[in-house]
């Protein structure tokens, strides 16, 4: 083994020993779990949003149809009432 290669191996060994003690900073594991929980919650919101959007559109359409139906029924009732009133005969 030439001197340069030997010095490469020695330097790698020294760096290995010096970095063997590396640890995550205090509270790292808790931060990871908090990030996972937060990301999961956001994912659920993102998944629910399209469903909620469709539900909202469906509700608006349903309300519009119900309103039209109600208006139509009301006007029919008015017409019937008008016809009824129109046939009332009064005697003097």
């Amino acid at each position, binding site marked *: 083994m030439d001197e*340069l290669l030997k010095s490469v191996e020695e330097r790698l060994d020294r760096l290995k020993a010096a*970095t063997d003690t*590396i640890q*995550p900073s205090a509270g790292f594991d808790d931060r990871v*779990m908090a990030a996972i929980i937060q990301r*999961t919650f956001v994912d659920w919101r993102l998944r629910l949003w399209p469903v909620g959007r469709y539900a909202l559109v469906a509700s608006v359409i349903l309300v519009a149809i119900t309103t039209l139906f109600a208006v139509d029924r009301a006007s029919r009732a008015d017409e019937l009432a008008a016809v009824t009133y129109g046939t009332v005969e009064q005697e003097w």
Partner: protein
Amino acid sequence: MDMTHRLVADQVCTSPGSFESLATLENAALRVQQGDIQAFGDIVRQTSAQLVRVAARVIGDLAEAEDVVQESYINAYQALTQGQFDARAHLLTWLRRIVTNRAIDAIRSRRRRPSLDDSKIEAGGEGAVYAESRMALIEMQDWMNALVPEQRAALVLSVLEGLSNAEIAQIMGSSEGAVEQRLVRARVALRQRIQKDG
């Protein structure tokens, strides 16, 4: 995490091949797949020290390494819950693969940032030890800067983490021959760097 828990986790991580520790991890992975998020906490506690060390050695910066490992855990959790982990590789090997790939990406898109700051050194409570690690990481970053990220990762996994070429091949998704070639080229480049520096 309390010190006792950390010591137990380190013992698990320093003997990754031990059947008991791997079985514990595989069991925790199964529980995560069944919707137990706390089981993922067990996985994090058992593997974080080792994964942060690998990432820090590949990237050369502890703060950036923690970011990489945190994102890797988030990816791993999502993959587990979506049934994307098929247990063909051991969980630890799979996690190392995610971290290594992310670390390689981080080197490629590196934006220069201050490395481990003084507050983190003090938080560790062992200032001198952390300072030595920090200096070693800076030295590694400078010395290995000449290497292609894949060569750097292969060298770290081989020499600093003590993994076999077969394990590295599995982690890096390449053949053993390709790993061997990367290691040879990495040593040649480092030797040239020493020669150049003088």
